């Protein structure tokens, strides 16, 4: 039997530590989720919140960002919903490959690839006035 926690934060980075803490505590309620996966999820959520804040700054919105954390029998799902006007993740340039010398100049734009790698599944949904990013970490089966 699962549960859901919802947070609404101002679009400010100084609230991210609180979000990560709640995500960490909620994810630890899933008995089979290893600590390292919880760390992955905390970072992925932080990146999603950073994107949300960036988007809202660009759109001039001071509305709250909503973060919901659901712990179910088979997965932990975190959804970050912003009012940043929406963006197309396909429009974001891929980071250069490892052997590309320009890689070292690529100091921004690592957020999306990180989210995609850290979570088992990432889904972007366009809302009326922004984007909902759903991050899913699957629970290993109990042994």
């Amino acid at each position: 039997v699962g549960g859901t926690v919802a947070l609404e934060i101002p679009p400010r980075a100084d609230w991210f530590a609180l979000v990560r803490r709640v995500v960490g505590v909620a994810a630890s309620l899933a008995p089979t989720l290893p600590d390292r996966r919880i760390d992955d999820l905390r970072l992925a959520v932080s990146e999603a919140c950073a994107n949300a804040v960036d988007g809202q700054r660009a759109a001039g919105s001071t509305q709250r960002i909503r973060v919901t954390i659901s712990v179910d029998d088979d997965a932990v799902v975190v959804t970050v919903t912003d009012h940043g006007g929406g963006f197309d993740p396909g429009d974001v340039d891929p980071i250069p490959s490892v052997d590309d010398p320009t890689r070292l100049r690529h100091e921004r734009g690592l957020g999306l690839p990180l989210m995609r790698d850290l979570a088992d599944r990432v889904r972007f949904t366009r809302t009326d006035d922004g984007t909902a990013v759903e991050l899913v970490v699957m629970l290993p089966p109990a042994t």
Partner: protein
Amino acid sequence: VDLLTTHEERDGWTVLHVHGEVDLTTVPRLRGVVSELLRDGSPNLIVDLDDVGLLDSAGLGVLLGAVRRARAAQGDVRFVSTRPLVQRLFAITGLYEIHPLAASVDDALGRGRAGG
């Protein structure tokens, strides 16, 4: 404490120890410390990330920037961490290919004496 840094000089290298969580709120402080050390000290920098619980993409950007600046000054940057999350981040970003993580500061220094 959200982010704490200390540094020391060892064998011609500046060793920067980072403790805490590196995210958008703390990354300006990390960027400032790294810039200051590379400007005022040796262009050879060891960044000890063994006590870093979280390192976001902005923090990785600072580390990439440090590598670029140190190389421009004919120096180098080495990284230390045994944390799975940091190891994973280095793998994802490709930093690992250029800068394998040392298990300890001594390790990082030892590789230096061996000439690479």
